[in-house]
């Protein structure tokens, strides 16, 4: 870290790999690179987890993933977490609570039956249980819940603690992390990235990773790329710490069911997410709004979330809400992150666009990108995640 005032005293001018962004993705990549013996330089314009990774809930939810590639990625990531706890420590507050997706009406129930079938075929173990069984497992649920799906694999973690733990582990294995320093330019010569210019330094580097999350498009512009990542705000309510109330992390079927029944998506209404952190605070989400980079919360957003959750968990009525925040999810048009190399721009690697799944997918993303750079090979092909799938052309070269 650079102490104030900024000096270039002991900062070497080259780096094997420069990672732009110290959110959970950049942090995970840094960590996984050090496992290959590579010592990356992470450049962060604010501080670690200053963006979405510090303004989200900690759900590591598999049930909500689209069956197919998305779910496959999530399952692989989830597997990695078990090993990661031992390396990163219990400070990341990873808990295998199991997750419930609560169902409130017959239309949702019909859609969720289809979902369960498809998820199971894709390899996710899920059960469909009745309302009474749901309440037996999660007593704070009201009679409004007529059924639920349950997956023992769903879990939760502390998102910024996870980010910090990745970075701390990377740092002790030789990675360097510069904070309060923004990337202003990326030098590209003959179609290859040559160096990264920040507020205070110029670093020669052959490999530059765009892990800038909601700001990934801005980084893309530095190299003449149009990256279709736009911020999508999610508002979250935080309650005071209360004695243990929730046994699992919860989402509402509305999110999932809408995928199978477009009518449900059209009739509006919002889904919710619910999690009780280790600290005892309960996090209640969320919204999905395109408002540019506005991270404020709104009266409408807050009141909608509150009205949505109280009928389902009435015990929350008398719990004080002490804080709200807005996080900007890095949204892509097809809901999949943008990972891997970029044709025509050697050395520039994409690792952004995880929209709402950054925490859950951080483990596998870090591993895949690190493997790609260190060995050229990844556990499974990244073709479906490439930037080119959006038909991006016009890569500028110096």
């Amino acid at each position: 870290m650079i102490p104030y005032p900024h000096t270039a005293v002991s900062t070497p001018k080259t780096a094997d790999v420069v990672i732009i962004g110290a959110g959970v993705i950049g942090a995970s990549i840094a960590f996984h690179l050090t496992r290959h013996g590579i010592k990356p330089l992470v450049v962060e314009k604010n501080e670690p987890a200053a963006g979405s990774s510090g303004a989200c809930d900690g759900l590591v939810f598999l049930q909500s993933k689209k069956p197919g590639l998305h779910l496959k990625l999530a399952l692989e990531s989830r597997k990695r977490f078990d090993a990661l706890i031992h390396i990163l420590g219990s400070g990341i507050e990873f808990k295998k609570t199991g997750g419930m997706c609560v169902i409130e009406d017959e239309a949702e129930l019909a859609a969720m039956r289809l979902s369960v079938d498809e998820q199971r075929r894709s390899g996710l173990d899920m059960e469909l249980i009745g309302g009474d069984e749901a309440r037996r497992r999660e007593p704070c649920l009201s009679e409004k819940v007529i059924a639920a799906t349950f997956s023992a694999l769903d879990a939760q973690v502390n998102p910024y603690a996870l980010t910090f733990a990745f970075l701390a582990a990377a740092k002790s294995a030789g990675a360097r992390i510069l904070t309060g320093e923004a990337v202003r330019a990326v030098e590209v010569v003959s179609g290859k990235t040559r160096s990264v210019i920040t507020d205070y330094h110029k670093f020669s580097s052959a490999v530059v990773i765009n892990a800038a999350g909601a700001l990934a498009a801005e980084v893309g512009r530095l190299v003449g790329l149009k990256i279709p990542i736009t911020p999508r705000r999610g508002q979250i309510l935080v309650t005071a710490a209360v004695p243990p109330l929730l046994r699992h992390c919860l989402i509402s079927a509305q999110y999932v069911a809408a995928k199978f029944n477009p009518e449900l998506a059209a009739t509006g209404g919002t889904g919710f997410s619910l999690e009780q952190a280790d600290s005892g605070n309960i996090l209640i989400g969320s919204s999905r709004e395109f408002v540019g980079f506005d991270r404020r919360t709104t009266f409408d957003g807050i009141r909608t979330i509150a009205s949505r959750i109280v009928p389902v968990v009435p015990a929350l009525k008398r719990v004080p809400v002490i804080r709200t925040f807005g996080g900007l999810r890095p949204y892509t048009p097809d809901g999949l992150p943008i990972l891997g190399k970029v044709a025509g721009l050697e050395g520039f690697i994409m690792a952004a666009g995880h929209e709402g799944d950054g925490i859950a997918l951080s483990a596998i993303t870090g591993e895949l990108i690190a493997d790609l750079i260190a060995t050229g090979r990844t556990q499974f092909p990244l073709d479906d995640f490439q930037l080119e799938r959006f038909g991006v052309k016009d890569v500028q070269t110096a």
Partner: protein
Amino acid sequence: MGAKRVDVAIVGAGLAGATAADVLARHGARVLVLDDNLHPGGQYLRGGRQAGSRWTDGARRRGLDLIDRLAETRVEVRSRAEVLGIEEGFELLVADESGELVVVKCEHVLLATGARERFMPFKGWTRPGVLSTGAVQILIKQSGILPARETVMAGTGLFLAAVARDIQKSGGQVPVVLEEAPVFTRIPPPALIARQFSRFLQGGALLAGLRLSGTAVRHSTRVLEARGGNGVQEVVAARVDKAGAPIPGSEMVYPAGCLAVGFGFAANIDLAQLAGCGLAYNSSLGGWVVRVDEDLETTVDGLHAAGEITAIGGAAKSLSEGQLAAYSILRRMGLLKSGEMIDKISTLKEMRRRQMAFARYFNSQYTFHPDYLTNWVRSLPDQVLVCRCEEVSLGDMRRAVADGFDTPAGVKKATRCGMGICQGSTCKTILLEVLAALTGKPHSQILLPSVRTPVKPVYLGTLAGQNP
């Protein structure tokens, strides 16, 4: 869920807010005053007429008359109403005393949210029996209760002496006042003394009264620890040198049933910050304050600010500013023609200028040099708690800064400082002071953490539009 539409919403029924409401109503504006306290009058007028003294100054008398008058006018004053947030338009989200949500729509907003006390931490300051100076004054003035037979005062500022006198007049004892600052080193300019003579006289009378009743005022003396079981039994203090470091071997121990602490005041700027008002850090104005022009308008169109939030400056300034803000709003509403009240406004502006000059002098008396504060922070042991709610220690903060988390947002995430139920109301000023000391950055370069609705805790049921 209620809704109200008015011309002007005023947040705070203290001197500034009440004065403004009075002026606005007399000129025909529809006003709603929202105040979170049990009774209007703010901190200054707590306890009403009974809590005054023979030395009751003009500001207090005028303030009390004002509150009485308000009750007779058509100004609606809602007490026990918490303004949770403010949005463009304007809209205010309010939780009333029954736990119901009310949305207030208005064209103009006046923020007169006053100040709270600020603190520097020490060992044992979270022990029950350690109270803020203000808490003791409120107990005495509002409820006629003394927290203990013997109360030691510690911190900085004349407020300590004022409350010490309140305690003595109520039959309690104050063995000692532990004042961090050295004896006044700045001689006030003669012109200032002449203009604010009565205020200097009051201050002098206060200190004389203390001395006469046997209370020692020890300057350059810092409270180090509050010891006891679940309550306070004794207070440990030490002398400090000119650089701000405790002098070894100078420790003193005072038995006491209560320790009252206060280190000046901090403006309550949360709503202003939430509304996007321009803020400024200025130690001679009392720290972070809301930027206003001479008509008391903030950088947000239609939003005015008055009273302690523009500068910690006392009762008379609040009265002037409340009036000025009201006239400015009336002009914008077209209820005051351009030539009207010109002399009055001109006089008020001149009075305000003088009051600001006094405020600057007064605040700088109790502002410590950055080097002094750095030494102060350095001298504090690791286990001293900075964030009371989450029990985050100074040691936790030092470790976080060493790990590179050197901004308030970073420290917050790394330590949870400021994440508790009070959301930094108590620890934010301490956090900023500690960061300034540890990083060497000036306050103006330390980014305030963001503020979001609700600025005060509110039941989820209330937000959901149900009565909890």
